[in-house]
Structures are given as C-alpha cells and as structure tokens.
C-alpha cells in the first residue's frame, strides 16, 4: 500500500500537455542531431569560431542555460529555503526546470569542448585551483547534485530535507554562477569583460531569467492564466512585481556599463561597446537585448503593476528571448577587438576593415543551439505531463 502512495506522489498525469507539443519539440530537438553528427565526423572546423573569436554561440547558449538554471534555483529558494510561504508553490516546477536547463547547458558545452571526456578526468586528477573555469565547472557539478536531491525531497514532501538541499543548492548556485561571471571577469586581456562587474551582473540576470521562466512554465502547466489556482496566482503576481524590479535594476546596470565604456573612449572597452551600439551587433543589441529583453517587459510590468498575469506572461516571453541575445552579445562583443592589430602579415583571422574582427555562427552551431533549446522544452513538457508537480 505504502509503495502505491509514493508512486502516486511522484507521478500524475497532466492532460493539459498535448502529445502534439511533445512530438513537435522532439522534432525540433532532432534538428540538433545534424550539428552533433557533423562535428563528430568533421571536427570543430564545422564551427564558425576562429582564432580571434574562440568562444561562439555554443558558449553563450551554455551561459543562457546555466543562468536560467541558477535563476530558477535562487527564486524557488525563496519558498522552501527562506520560508516565504507564498512562494512555496513554485518549488517543484522551478527545481525540475533548473535541473533540465543545467543538463542541456552541459550538453551544449560538451559539444563546444574539444575533449569533454578528458575534461572529466583531468578536472579531477590535474585541477588548477587558480582557474575560474575549474571552479565554475566543479561548483556546477556540486550544484547539480544538490538540486537533484532537493527535487527528490520536494517530491517526497520532506520539508527539512528540501530546506537543507535547497540551502546547499542556493550556496553552490550563487558560487558557481558568480564564478561563471569570473571566467570572463578575470581576463585582464579583455577590458570589456575585466573587473568585478560580470560576477555581480550574472547573479542579477539569473534572477530575471528565473522569474521570467517561472511565469512561463506555470502558464504551460495550467494552459492559460485564468486556469491558475489561487495559490499560484498569488505567487505569480508577487513574482511579476519582483520581475519588474529586477528589470529596472538591470537597466540601471546596463546604462552605467555603457557610460563607463564610452566616456573618454577607454581603449578596447570603447570599441567593444561601439560594436554593440552602432556596429555589427547593433541590431541584436537594440532590438533583442534592449527592446525585447528589457524595455518592453519592464514597461508591461510597470503599467499593469504585475496584476495582469497574461501581460506578465507576454513580458516574460519577451524577456527570455531578449536574454538569449543578451548572452550572445556579451560573449561575442568581448572578443571583437583583436589582440593584435590586423596589419598586413599579422594574419589576424576574420579581421574587418575597421580593425575589428567578426564572428557568425555556422549552420552546425545554430542547429545544436536550436536542438538543445527544443530538447529542453521537450524534457520539461515530459516532466510536466507525467510528474506530480502540483502541490
């Protein structure tokens, strides 16, 4: 009998998730198989990355995934770690999506690394404690273990266990994620990234991704905002307000990042920021990052006061699309100023007339990105359909 109740606790069928969506997202993820096979057969030449821009869209997509994961974990911890009862309802859904986004992020970075299996071995037997990538990778590993345990306890309604695992996940998540910021922030060679700004900014933008994704997934689970149960409505209304606040803070952060990079034209910072404002990344920056990512969702929340959950959902979708480009812009812009002047004979790869270099993702890279995003949605829908994620 007892086994039966446990199974009942874990599994429950949600009829709101239609099989058509499952099949569709699975088909989209199959698109990624093209890129995976192409790189396994033909090697990293099929990627658009170069000697001058060694980190491309796969790195930025990895960042997008793990930012989402960390954000989901941080936001969900408000409920079962910090005891704000209102937010306890978001726990299970947020944590399962945190696990899935992290796994998809790991999948994407495994495709970007030349030797992912070698990484697992030498990360352990030859660790460099000075390396931000070592800390980032290792802490994300620890974080994954914590959030899996946390999810298990949440499903078991073990509040004490969920508290401790959640606290562990919270600490590991913050450490791992700020270390990811440090991966960029510790590079003296790249003035656009260098400094304490990125580790802080990454935590802030994780909070935005987290709130936006929670607003979206609750609407997926219940079909539409009007179907949401009262408890969820309360939590989401609160989250909408927080969402607006975080967006306001990130707009403030961005304004000062840009002013300090333009004022007095500090070398290399200036050129990188101008690539965003007027150069090769300007459409990405103004349309996706500024409009979709920040201004539209901010004003939607500002004018609806977060009380209209349909409007909040639109704001959240807009922000998530914008944030994807935000990550891309951040990773690429930092590398667009070449480390050597592209003079004749210097062989600076993919140099442009204006002294900058350029990068465009290859078809294989794009297919892996789309495949990973599709697969992540597929996994979430699957979890939503068959796991008991409601309280």
């Amino acid at each position, binding site marked *: 009998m007892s086994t039966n109740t446990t199974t009942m606790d874990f599994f429950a069928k949600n009829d709101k998730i239609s099989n058509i969506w499952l099949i569709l997202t699975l088909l989209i993820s199959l698109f990624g198989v093209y890129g995976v096979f192409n790189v396994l057969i033909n*090697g990293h030449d099929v990627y658009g990355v170069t000697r001058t821009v060694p980190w491309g869209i796969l790195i930025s997509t990895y960042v997008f995934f793990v930012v989402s994961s960390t954000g989901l974990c941080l936001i969900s911890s408000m409920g079962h770690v910090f005891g704000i009862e209102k937010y306890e309802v978001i726990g299970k859904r947020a944590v399962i999506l945190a696990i899935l986004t992290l796994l998809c992020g790991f999948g994407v970075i495994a495709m970007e690394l030349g*030797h992912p299996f070698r990484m697992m071995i030498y990360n352990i037997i030859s660790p460099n404690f000075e390396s931000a990538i070592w800390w980032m990778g290792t802490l994300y590993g620890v974080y994954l273990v914590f959030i899996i345990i946390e999810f298990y306890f949440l499903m078991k309604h073990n509040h004490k266990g969920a508290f401790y695992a959640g606290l562990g996940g919270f600490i590991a998540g913050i450490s791992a994620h700020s270390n990811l910021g440090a991966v960029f922030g510790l590079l003296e060679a790249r003035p656009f990234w260098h400094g304490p700004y990125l580790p802080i900014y990454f935590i802030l933008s994780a909070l935005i991704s987290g709130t936006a994704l929670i607003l979206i997934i609750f609407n997926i689970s219940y079909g539409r905002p009007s179907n949401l149960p009262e408890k969820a409505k309360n939590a989401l209304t609160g989250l909408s307000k927080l969402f607006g606040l975080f967006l306001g803070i990130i707009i403030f952060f961005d304004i000062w990042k840009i002013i300090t990079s333009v004022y007095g034209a500090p070398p290399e910072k200036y050129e990188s920021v101008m690539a965003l404002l007027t150069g090769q990344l300007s459409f990405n920056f103004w349309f996706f990052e500024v409009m979709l990512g920040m201004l539209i969702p901010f004003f939607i929340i500002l004018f609806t006061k977060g009380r209209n959950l349909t409007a909040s959902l639109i704001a959240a979708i807009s922000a998530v699309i914008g944030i994807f480009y935000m990550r891309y812009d951040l990773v690429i812009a930092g590398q667009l100023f070449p*480390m050597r002047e592209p003079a004749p004979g210097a062989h*600076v790869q993919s140099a442009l007339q204006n002294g900058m270099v350029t990068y465009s993702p290859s078809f294989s890279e794009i297919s892996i990105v789309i495949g990973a995003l599709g697969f992540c949605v597929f996994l979430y829908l699957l979890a939503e359909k068959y796991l008991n994620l409601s309280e």
Partner: protein
Amino acid sequence: MSENSRALKLAEDNQKLANKRKKAKEKWGIVLDTSKCIDCKACTVACKMENYVPVGFYNYRIWVAEDTHYAKYPVISRSFQPSQCQQCENPPCVHVCPTHASYKTADGVVMVDSKKCILCKYCMTACPYDARYESHATEAIDKCTFCYQRREEGKDPACVETCPPKVRVFGDLNDPNSEVSRLLAYNEYTVLKPEKGTKPKLKYIK
C-alpha cells in the same frame, strides 16, 4: 610517419624533456632588433617545418606584422614587427587553464601538455597576444615552445637560426655574460603590451 603523428610525437617528447629538465637554471628569452627585419618570413617557414605545424593559413606559431605607422609620400618608411608567444613570466594562459595543460617549465618556457588539454580555449581568450591556435595534429592548443626539442643540444630555436639579418638573438637571461643579457644591458628596450603585466621574455630593442 604522417605529419600529424610527427607533431604529436614532438609534443610528447617535449613533455618528457620538460620533466627531465626540472632542475634547469636558465631563463630563456629572445631579444629582437626589428630594424634589421626584411620581412622575408623565413622564420615563419622555419617554425612550421621544425614543429610540424599543420597546413592552414591561420595555423601558425609566429608571424611578421607590418608596422602601420605609414608616413605620407614622398617621406615614407617601412618597418616590421616579427613576434610569437611572449613566453610571459606572468602568463595569463597558465593561470586560467583548468587542467594545468598550459604550464611553465623550470626554464620559463610556456608549453601545452597536449594530453591534458580539453580544448576549452580559455587560454586563447586570456592571451593578450593571439599567440595560440587549435592544432588538428595534436588535437590540443598549440603555441611557440622556443623549439624546446633543441634545448638539450643547446641549439637556437628555428626562427632564430634561420633569420638572415639576425633580428632575433636567443639566450639565457639569467646569465649576465650571455649575448641577450649584453644586448639588454647596452640598449634601451621595450616589451609588447607592458600594461597587461604579463612580463614578456621577448624584448624589443628600441
């Protein structure tokens, strides 16, 4: 033996040699007098030959860049800046490498242990000189090793040996009587991007 397996064997032999020379007291460096450079690019060819650098326009360890401070006709001048890995004393690539694949030998040469390299390319983003590339031959990051295979015989690196006007002089910066130390004592010199704090061991005579 294919070119690729030669390159791989060379990389492995250099690791063994670096292990063997753990007690080496030298600090290798190159002093360059760029005013002598005639842009013949013999150094870039010699480097590729000596180190089995894979074919490809952007697979290179060293380069000769033209200085772009052109004067206007009829007052014109032309000069060149040959360069390679700066073999920094404070190498950012070594700090950032998660698996110690990039490391500094006892005699101060920055090398890549190709077996440990996971190709995360962090070192490529950390290097302020764009001195590294992804090698198909070793399936790892590759870079200038000061022709480490020649250290036991005491021969100069290939780029130094082949240079017709003797732009580069190679030697032990720790030995006050070496030619490099003398050149540095008698001439004013500079390094590339000193503001990055990397302390390069490639010194350019002004």
